[in-house]
């Protein structure tokens, strides 16, 4: 008898042994019974869809793409990828105007940022929020993050020349959030890296990583951006082929590292091993003795770390936690890794608001009980969700590091 040795399916759905452990860890399942669950939506449904696309179930749109099913799967099945690929392939319903707006972060950021004072004022008015909900279906509980009048890329220009003077170089993918909403985080990273003796380079013509476009099925546009980004990243690395490409957003890092090849079929192999979360990379550099950090003696904070779904999938939360624990003045309180419910643009949609809050409820309770001074988190949308739902301040580990660092002493130690 002849045996087939290798499996031949994409995303290895035939490796599923129907154990259902993924369903236990799906944050959505017990909250929204209309969602068929990762096993049924993923490997089970895939068998039917391969026979006939008419078996596609539109309820797959509820999937958060958190990948916690994949983290739980003992058989290595790419459950989340199967579900997202099915949405891309079979969902032919037109993409709503609202979803296009939420997904086109670059366009929205450019327009909103140009009129920042007006936009920010308007987006905080109750009447505008109600209008957005009625006309577009953006939930009125949500507040858009404030737009910055000058982008991070613009602010960086004044620092760019000094960067070449540092002996080591790193490329930084700042992403839409740092660029349009929160340049302070990008500036924190530049300060920290400079103190560590590392110069920062941006990626010329950087576009959105595509996480929002993928979630909203604007796949062709996401793919074009992805191809552009990979080329631009290679150009930014130039002769420094081993330099790291750093991120301050875990979803940007995850998307460009893993979703590009898996979902968009864009080859990133030339730069994939360069891509690293800034906090993870720094923790590793400190560990191997290549970077020294000196902290202010007076800095004290009670800190917990929220593991975003995408950093859970990347497997790098361990580094961020190590980085925080380096700071002597920090009292670290752990909290179980679980989804906060926002899932990027998902929680902004009127129809998902209640689900989004129900998913996060348990986490919010735990955080309120821990009552830290600040929640550290590598994801910006988790930050909005947790700040809105608990009132507790959330900061990227890099910003916490920047607050705790004695810059002069650090610069001296790395000279």
């Amino acid at each position, binding site marked *: 008898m002849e*045996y087939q*040795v290798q499996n031949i399916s994409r995303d290895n759905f035939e490796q599923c*042994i129907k*154990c*259902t*452990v993924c*369903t*236990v*860890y799906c944050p959505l*399942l*017990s909250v929204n*019974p*209309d*969602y*068929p*669950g990762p096993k*049924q939506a993923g490997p089970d449904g895939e068998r039917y869809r391969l026979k006939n696309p008419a078996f596609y179930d539109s309820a797959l749109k509820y999937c958060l793409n958190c990948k916690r099913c*994949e*983290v*739980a*799967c*003992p*058989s*290595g099945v790419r459950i989340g990828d199967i579900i997202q690929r099915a949405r891309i392939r079979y969902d032919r319903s037109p993409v709503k105007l609202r979803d296009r707006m939420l997904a086109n972060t670059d366009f929205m950021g450019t327009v909103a940022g140009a009129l920042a004072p007006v936009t920010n004022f308007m987006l905080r008015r109750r009447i505008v929020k109600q209008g957005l909900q009625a006309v577009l279906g953006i939930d009125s509980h949500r507040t858009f993050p404030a737009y910055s009048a000058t982008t991070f890329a613009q602010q960086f220009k004044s620092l760019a020349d000094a960067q070449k003077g540092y002996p080591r170089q790193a490329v930084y993918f700042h992403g839409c959030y740092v660029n349009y909403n929160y340049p302070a985080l990008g500036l924190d990273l530049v300060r920290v890296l400079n103190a560590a003796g590392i110069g920062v380079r941006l990626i010329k013509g950087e576009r959105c990583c595509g996480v929002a476009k993928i979630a909203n099925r604007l796949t062709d546009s996401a793919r074009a951006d992805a191809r552009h980004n990979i080329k631009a990243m290679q150009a930014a690395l130039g002769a420094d082929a081993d330099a790291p490409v750093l991120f301050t957003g875990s979803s940007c890092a995850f998307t460009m590292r893993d979703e590009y090849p898996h979902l968009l079929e864009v080859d990133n192999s030339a730069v994939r*091993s360069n891509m690293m979360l800034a906090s993870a990379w720094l923790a*590793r550099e400190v*560990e191997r003795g290549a970077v020294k950090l000196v902290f202010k003696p007076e800095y004290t904070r009670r800190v917990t770390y929220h593991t975003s779904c995408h950093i*859970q*999938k*990347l*497997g*790098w939360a*361990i580094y961020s936690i190590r980085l925080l624990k380096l700071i002597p003045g920090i009292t670290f309180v*752990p909290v*179980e*890794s679980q989804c906060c419910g926002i899932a990027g643009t998902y929680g902004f949609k009127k129809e998902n608001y209640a689900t989004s809050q129900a998913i996060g409820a348990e986490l919010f309770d735990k955080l309120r009980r821990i009552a830290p001074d600040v929640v550290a988190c590598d994801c910006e949308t988790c930050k909005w969700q947790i700040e809105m739902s608990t009132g507790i301040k959330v900061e990227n580990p890099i910003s916490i590091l920047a607050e705790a660092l004695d810059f002069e002493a650090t610069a001296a130690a790395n000279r």
Partner: protein
Amino acid sequence: MKFDVVITGGGLSGLVAGTALAKARRKVAIISSGQSALHFCSGSFGLLGKAGGKTLESPLAGIELLPPTHPYRKMGAEATGAYADAAPLLFAEAGITLKGTSRANHRHLSPLGKLRSSWLTMGDFMTFSGERPPMKDCVIVNFEGFLDFYPSYLADGLGALGVRCRTASVKIEAVERLRRSSGEMRAASVARLLRGEALEELAIEINKVCGDADTVFIPAVIGFDSEEHLQRLRRMVGVPLYCVPVTPMSVTGHRAQQLLRHRFGQLGGTYLLGDSAVAAHMNADGSVRAIETASLCDDYLEADRFILAGGGIFSRGIVAAPHKIYEPLFGLDVQATDDRDRWFDADFFARQPYMSFGVATDAAFHPLRGGSAVENLYAAGAVLGGADPLTEESGAGIAITTALHVADLIINS
């Protein structure tokens, strides 16, 4: 990254070894590619139920009847018993109540109301000795629409044991919502909802249908993350209340996994969930230098000592190719035959030879590689060859005792 001990496999065996080592102040990392087989646990652990064709009352007495390459034979009956007796405390420290001792197997009930024997059983379930459960008149309560629990079968089984049984079903508001999708009204989803007020509602409904019953049985769907919820329910219900295992995912197994992991973390252990060991890097002298993982890439996990606790074929600690059984990470020697026709017995219910396939080790649980022992590597749990956990009813016992044994060897070396 550098640790004292790196463990591949984060299930029962890996966590027990990791916890014991972390308690002894070793710096430990566990790599776990996905969730473990504990999620299929019925709530009872077997040490040794059958050996040499005999059903055992005392598990330790059966060890001498096992083949010489069996893990229990390598440890010896006395040491196996000592590790077995140390286990309940380790679980209690994690918040897991286990009833039983290694001196005698106790009885508990299967989902169909049959008597089963085990070494340890979680506090959720009824345990007793002898052939009759300690009750006369019970009521079996199910949730309307919950299909993974079979009250009538259970009632028939208990009836045959001389217990009067009634069945009743209750409707709980919070759980009702799940019925919109019948396929996903599973134990874990129900358990997530049965807390707080929903639990009070459940207690009221149970008390309504309880009547003169001296015992209440419910499906094992209480306590997703801690035993506290069941304790609360028990306080609110007038008569003794026990759970009965349901179709997996097992809520008690999930809880045990989470609590053990939490305990390991509390003791300073590093648990890498969803990462997987992709390569082992060896020293020139044949010892292990480091493990490379999928997520940490070129940041290898270095350690003085390593434990392989990757589980059996189910967990891919051992892999079956069409004509080969192999250990994928280190390329260790396996106790198995490459003759595929000798893997199975055509009689499905007969002893299946592949069940005993696993890594070959020396007497000190160092796996063999090309015939020689890898001195800084230890194997524990289902990855070990020479045992047939299914027929012996020894799976959990082997996982726990060999884990404690290798932890001990490392601590005392």
